[in-house]
């Protein structure tokens, strides 16, 4: 049976891991390679490294840390942020990343998803989606890495997810923006709505605070993976303990 994935997200800025609340007020959390190894030893199923400045800064930052991570990690990892061209993607995959994740560039030009999938295979292409509730619907936001540039896109969440899937994405990471960093639980309604339109793997992001939140999102929203950052970085939740708890609740979890 395929296990539910526990994914730790490391927000990277200038070669160190940082964390902010609702994309703001970043504080340094530690060294990339050290944190990656610690999570691997704790039993994390996958890691995402998200360069939080790259996409909105219109620049591709130095990615030499990718190969440093790839040298020590024996679990899969994904790199997100600032990947705007085929060359950007190729460089990161050649450095040893298993997947790349794109967000704003996909909104600028959806065809980019297809081009990446054709060259690198759908399994390597993740599309990140930032969405929040507005009126009675969920809408997609763009350039969320920089609040001064963040704008509402023209897409409704479910329409965009369907499009992204049909363009050739291999996985979706859906970040529920209102939940990000506030630890009140994943947005189950939003994630369930996303699940309903997707047949590719779906990873929940934003809102994890307690172990029950993970249980809820796996059982109620049927996501394949649950991503969290600050709760792991601060030590509020320990990945080993979380996985033991979820296994005891009857979920399929890698030991």
């Amino acid at each position: 049976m395929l296990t539910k994935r526990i994914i730790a997200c490391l927000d990277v800025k200038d070669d160190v891991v940082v964390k902010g609340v609702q994309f703001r007020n970043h504080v340094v959390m530690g060294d990339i390679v050290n944190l990656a190894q610690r999570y691997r030893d704790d039993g994390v199923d996958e890691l995402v490294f998200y360069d939080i400045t790259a996409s909105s800064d219109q620049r591709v930052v130095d990615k030499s840390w990718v190969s440093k991570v790839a040298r020590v990690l024996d679990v899969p990892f994904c790199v997100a942020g600032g990947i705007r061209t085929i060359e950007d993607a190729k460089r990161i995959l050649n450095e040893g990343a298993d997947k790349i994740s794109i967000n704003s560039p996909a909104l600028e030009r959806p065809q980019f998803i297809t081009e990446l999938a054709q060259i690198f295979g759908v399994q390597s292409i993740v599309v990140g989606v930032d969405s929040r509730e507005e009126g009675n619907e969920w809408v997609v936001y763009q350039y969320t890495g920089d609040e001064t540039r963040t704008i509402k896109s023209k897409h409704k969440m479910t329409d965009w997810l369907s499009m992204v899937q049909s363009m050739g994405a291999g996985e979706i990471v859906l970040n529920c923006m209102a939940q990000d960093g506030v630890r009140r639980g994943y947005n189950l309604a939003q994630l369930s709505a996303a699940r309903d339109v997707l047949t590719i793997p779906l990873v929940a992001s934003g809102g994890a605070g307690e172990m029950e939140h993970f249980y809820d999102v796996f059982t109620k929203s049927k996501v394949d993976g649950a991503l969290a950052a600050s709760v792991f970085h601060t030590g509020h939740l320990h990945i080993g303990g979380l996985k033991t708890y979820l296994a005891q609740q009857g979920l399929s979890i890698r030991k």
Partner: protein
Amino acid sequence: MITIVESGGANIASIRFALERLNVSAEWTSDVDKISKASRVMLPGVGAAGDAMQKLRAKELDECVKSLTCPVLGICLGMQMLFSTSAEGQTDMLDIIKAPVVRLTEEVGKTIPHMGWNDVMIEQKDHPLMQGLVEKEFFYFVHSYYAPLGSYTVGRCDYFFNSFSAIVIQDNFMGCQFHPERSGAAGSRVLENFIRM
């Protein structure tokens, strides 16, 4: 020394680093002569089946790999390449193992690609490639096509109603559908076993 068939795909660094962690020297080459004389050959595979086979044939590596008598390990698409055909782009593969690779069946609640950690039932624990593995191990998979079960299956994976080959062995040809280089301690064990065979 491991000889790795380099046919021009991207994303091969992870295998290189995994071998480095095991202190194994590896040579990446597309030279038919070198591969023919190798003592151990690894066949990684990334991307789409048709493209990968085309690259292999362009360098006349298909006949070369087929004629090998040393231990050969195909990884992911590299394992699938050992089979006769693939439904992915209706591709003719190396035809070493006489069975077709087919697409995962769509089912309610089942996501495709099959992506993540899945348990594998080890069915031939006494084989050198399986040394030190327990009956049920977790490995990291990413794929949309699979090799059916057969006499060559030594590790079985179940995903909804699809049961398929996670590890195959036929004579000196071996393969794993998962990524041993990204499968933690169990994956390292498989690579180590192959190196020591």
